């Protein structure tokens, strides 16, 4: 919402500076977005006269002008290329140092083709205020030489652009802003007087067709008008706020819309077929609107129709067919109250944004329908002549009257501010609220017609899951409490929220309980673990391309965006691996992450077959850094498994309790991947190398190791005190075993069998060697296992060790068929 200071002065007596006005607007919720002060933007330009213009001796198209620009510049020589520069002409002069906005340069004194030039004579385009022209600006003979041009041309009217929040339809007018500023103590609101005009004789055109979406509509015919350009003052006002002047009849409606917030529409009465304008639901038809577009209407849209068809999309935009033009002699003026929801839905569906829609959507003053028509009538007759008919109307001004009450103690107990009842009442009265009842405890106010947002009493939309009793109890007091909050908001807004003293939040205990649940706290733990293992944390979009997603999961239509912002961001991701692989690819393509640091992880949501859940995913690409004694190596499935096992370890899942199965999803390398399970069903994570086909899809050439962990699948450890550890005083004993096993025997089974051979004595079992070939039979390999035995009562004797060796051998043989290598 733009307005100029001079326009504000129509409604507000004030002496405050521009800065004070802006500060106040910001404070009271009318946020200043931009201030354009032309006197700053166009400073330095002066009114001057050309005392003499002579041809330049060395250039055909240039003239040498002797210019008088008043005090300090009584006689300046200026070289000028404009054809219209001539002796006696009054012009705009820019002395050296003046910034020329139209050509983004600052004027310097100098020589042009050998002749001194001490400034510049300017065109309006160079000031950024006129159209393309081939000459300098010509000022009238009476223009005062030496005066500030901007002031002379009345361009020194600052324009303020403010953001109006959706609840403040009343502030979408200069009048409304003036009212707010007055209430905030910045000046005095001038009375608004709109005389009622009765008119003569009935209007030839009348309204028909009652509609719930239009409770009240008025109109009248004005005959014998002469349409043409508006006077300068009106054009200047509209131009200042960014509205292009068209013709007096149209400009009047725009003017009143900005001034009073009252949307109006004018029809050329002679283009209306028949004597009625009918309100009705549109059919499936097209409509040529004033925006030059053809809109396809639907049956939900409210339109105004004559004998030919749709002449206006009610409250949003008029039609081309009945538009006023320079030949219009009879004009029919419309002023109406359209339902905000109706306008919002139609406007949104058709994608038409107009100033009228904007205001209707946010609520207009229902008491200004008829006065708005009279104000328009008076201004049209003033500018275009003509004679007004009586008013034709349909429906009536709806009952907008309602009250809101304020319990004074709530100023403190809700608003947190110490404020006397009297002060609060006075503030509300300056906003137009009328005190109707007052006791020691509370005051009741009549809400002014323009404050649609106060005590609006809209319907609730309570949760369907609420028990009826509870819902009813919660709803019982809403209307009152809301209206009261509306009033408190007004009071606080006008006094400034900075005036509310700060208070510390009460606390029940000095030391608060942890903010995170044990489950939530795992997030930070996992992130820190991964970072400390050399992976960079990343944050990727939750949506990826369906093309990428299809590589990982059957593409789920239910997780595809209906209105994606780009085709590569159209599908909720089945796994963060997609983002990580893309990130790796991008970095590698730019030469980063190639050596030593191509590792990333993300802990974030994914939306696959299993529904939305959190996944910790990590990848390692590139090669390790070379160093004396270290060759560059590609990552392998073992790195990924180590990452996964380490992460599970942090979540208190011991490696020994996990079961590895070689059945990872198809985007993993089928022979170099697995899943870690707890029990037969619960999959806690996956690891492996990326399937070469998937790697090719992502343009990755080297080996990529990757893992996924599903933290929510990992049970939370039970909170119980740990038993004291059995710290034996006896030395552990280590024994090595070598088993010859068939190649299809997996290490996991051998280790498990060893562990199970004597659960009391065997403390740890480690694989230290795998050997194939040599003297081993074909299709076999040797597995070297180190077993740590921890005696507790007494040192192990030779025969005990012998028994244990036999037990281990037997257990492994039974489980896997492997035999001890002798």
């Amino acid at each position, binding site marked *: 919402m733009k307005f100029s200071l001079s326009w504000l002065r129509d409604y507000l007596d004030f002496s405050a500076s521009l800065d004070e006005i802006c500060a106040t607007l910001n404070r009271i*919720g009318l946020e200043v977005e931009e201030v354009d002060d032309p006197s700053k933007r166009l400073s330095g330009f002066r009114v001057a006269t050309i005392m003499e213009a002579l041809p330049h001796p060395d250039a055909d198209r240039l003239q040498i002008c002797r210019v008088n620009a008043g005090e300090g510049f009584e006689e300046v020589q200026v070289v000028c290329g404009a054809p219209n520069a001539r002796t006696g002409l009054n012009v705009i002069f820019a002395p050296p140092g003046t910034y020329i906005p139209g050509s983004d340069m600052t004027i310097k004194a100098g020589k042009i083709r050998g002749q001194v030039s001490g400034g510049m004579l300017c065109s309006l385009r160079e000031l950024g205020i006129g159209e393309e022209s081939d000459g300098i600006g010509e000022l009238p003979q009476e223009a005062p030489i030496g005066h500030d041009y901007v002031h002379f041309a009345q361009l020194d009217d600052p324009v303020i652009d403010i953001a109006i929040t*959706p609840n403040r339809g009343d502030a979408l007018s200069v009048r409304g802003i003036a009212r707010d500023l007055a209430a905030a103590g910045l000046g005095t609101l001038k009375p608004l007087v709109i005389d009622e005009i009765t008119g003569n004789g009935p209007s030839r055109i009348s309204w028909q067709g009652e509609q719930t979406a239009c409770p009240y509509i008025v109109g009248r015919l004005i005959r014998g008008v002469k349409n043409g350009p508006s006077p300068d003052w009106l054009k200047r006002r509209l131009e200042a706020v960014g509205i292009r002047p068209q013709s007096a009849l149209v400009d009047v409606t725009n003017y009143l819309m900005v001034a009073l917030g009252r949307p109006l529409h004018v029809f050329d009465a002679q283009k209306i077929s028949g004597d009625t304008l009918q309100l009705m639901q549109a059919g499936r038809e097209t409509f040529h609107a004033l925006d030059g577009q053809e809109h396809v209407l639907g049956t939900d849209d409210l339109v105004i129709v004559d004998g030919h068809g749709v002449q206006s999309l009610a409250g949003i935009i008029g039609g081309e067919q009945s538009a006023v033009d320079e030949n219009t002699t009879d004009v029919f003026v419309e002023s109406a109250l359209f339902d905000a929801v109706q306008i919002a839905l139609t406007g*949104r569906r058709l994608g038409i944004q107009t100033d009228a829609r904007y205001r209707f*959507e946010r609520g207009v003053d229902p008491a200004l329908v008829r006065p708005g028509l009279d104000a328009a009538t008076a201004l049209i007759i003033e500018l275009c002549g003509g004679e007004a008919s009586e008013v034709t109307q349909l429906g009536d001004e709806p009952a907008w009257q309602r009250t809101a009450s304020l319990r004074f103690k709530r100023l403190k*107990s*809700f608003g*947190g*501010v110490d404020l006397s009842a009297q002060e609060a009442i006075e503030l509300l009265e300056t906003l137009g609220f009328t005190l109707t009842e007052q006791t020691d405890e509370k005051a009741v106010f009549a809400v002014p017609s323009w404050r649609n947002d106060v005590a609006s009493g*809209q319907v*609730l939309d*309570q*949760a369907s899951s*609420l028990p009826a009793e*509870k819902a009813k109890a*919660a709803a019982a*007091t*809403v209307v009152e409490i*809301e209206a009261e*909050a*509306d009033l*408190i*908001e007004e009071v*606080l807004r006008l006094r400034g*929220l900075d005036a509310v*003293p*700060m*208070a*510390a*939040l009460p*606390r029940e205990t000095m030391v*608060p309980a942890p*903010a995170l*649940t044990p489950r939530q706290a795992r997030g930070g733990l996992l992130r820190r673990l991964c*970072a*400390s293992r050399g*992976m*960079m944390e*990343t*944050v*990727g*979009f*939750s*949506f990826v391309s369906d093309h990428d997603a299809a590589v990982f999961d059957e593409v789920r239509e*239910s997780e*595809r*965006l*209906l209105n*994606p*912002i780009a085709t590569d*961001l159209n599908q909720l991701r089945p796994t963060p691996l997609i*983002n*990580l692989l893309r990130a790796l690819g*991008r*970095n590698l393509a730019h030469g*980063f992450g190639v050596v030593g*640091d191509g590792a990333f*992880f993300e802990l974030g*949501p994914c*939306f696959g077959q299993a529904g*939305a859940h959190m996944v910790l995913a990590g990848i390692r690409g590139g090669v390790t850094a070379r160093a004396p004694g270290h060759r560059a190596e590609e990552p392998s499935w073992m790195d990924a498994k180590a990452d996964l096992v380490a992460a599970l370890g942090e979540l208190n899942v011991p490696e020994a309790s996990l079961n590895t199965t070689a059945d990872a999803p198809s985007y993993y390398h089928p022979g170099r991947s697995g899943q870690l399970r707890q029990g037969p069903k619960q999959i806690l994570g996956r690891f492996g190398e990326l399937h070469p086909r998937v790697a090719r899809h992502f343009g990755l050439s080297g080996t990529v190791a990757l893992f996924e962990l599903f933290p929510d699948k990992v049970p939370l450890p039970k909170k119980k005190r740990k038993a004291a550890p059995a710290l034996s005083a006896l030395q552990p004993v280590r024994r090595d075993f070598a088993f010859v096993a068939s190649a299809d025997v997996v290490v996991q089974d051998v280790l498990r069998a060893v562990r199970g051979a004597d659960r009391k004595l065997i403390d740890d079992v480690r694989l230290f060697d795998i050997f194939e070939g040599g003297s081993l039979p074909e299709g076999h390999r040797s597995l070297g296992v180190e077993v740590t035995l921890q005696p507790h009562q007494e040192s192990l004797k030779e025969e005990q060790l012998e028994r244990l060796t036999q037990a281990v051998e037997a257990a492994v043989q039974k489980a896997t068929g492997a035999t001890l290598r002798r």
Partner: protein
Amino acid sequence: MANDLETLKSETVEALAEAQTRAEWDAVRVGTLGRSGKLTGLLRQLGTFPPQERKERGQSLNRLRDELTVLIETRGQEIEEEALQKRLNDEKVDVTQPPAMPMVGKIHPISRTIEEITSIFSAMSFRVAEGPDVETQWHNFSALNTPDHHPARTDQDTFYLPSEQEGEDPRVLRTQTSGVQIRTMLDEGAPVRIIAPGRTYRADHDATHSPMFHQCEGLVVEENITLGHLKGCLVEFLRVFFDKPDLPVRFRASYFPFTEPSMEIDIGWSRKTGEIGAGEDWLEVLGAGMVHARVLANCGLDPQQWQGFAFGMGIERLAMLKNGIPDLRSFYESDLRWLRHYGFSALSPATLTEGF
């Protein structure tokens, strides 16, 4: 001293001087003092001497034994010292060689900022609540007093997903984490004191807008919470977060459908230098307000009994301001150089005890 003793002494001294290794030295020691050593032999022969000579020779032998023992021990230490010196000399390396360091990962600034925010609000007895990224329209809008036709609803460019069941409204990617507040009030009732950090989505993509970003919202609903508490809580948060005890904070009246009164909160900064808390300019960092009576009632709380405040902040925005990160889009680009530069050490989690 008898000649033979003199000879033994000088021979031994000579032999010790010649011994260069521990083995050579040991040979001398054993050859002199050992069971069949020369000195031991002489001592053993003492009995063969006539009694009148025996005493004197015995004393000489004992003196010689003491003398040789010292000489041998001293030489032994010398040899050991020399051997150690040689070994140390041999083991010398070029210590200017850099060690092979393991890869160092970093924590993303978004995670870090969420941790910082959480730890500050944690000190004010807030706990963290979570909710789904995909929401019903009721949870994301209607419950928050933003009906379908509301102008605020058109301002937010919402991403839609197909409805789960025939006839239902399309689902949305949450445009704010407010749905978490709604769920918490419905599930747990009042009193409530939570923050809800998380991913949010809006269909907007340019230099200053990302289709996905992070917000942290907060909700306090108790019986006696006033606008004064809102101010106290948020000013305290901002001053601790930016580590500026006298950070200027400004409250401007504004509008949100779900709060009343509503406000936007600015902090002082310098547009010129970007320094927080300095200069003459203001920068918006938070939106807040007293929870709207209709929102409470929609969630089954009686607004006559319960009241409180809610607030929301953009996590990327706070991270950018605090850490001087110029570009919003860079947060999601996973550029290694950026991550290394702006990332945080895994070993210093954001705790109020250690400060941040």
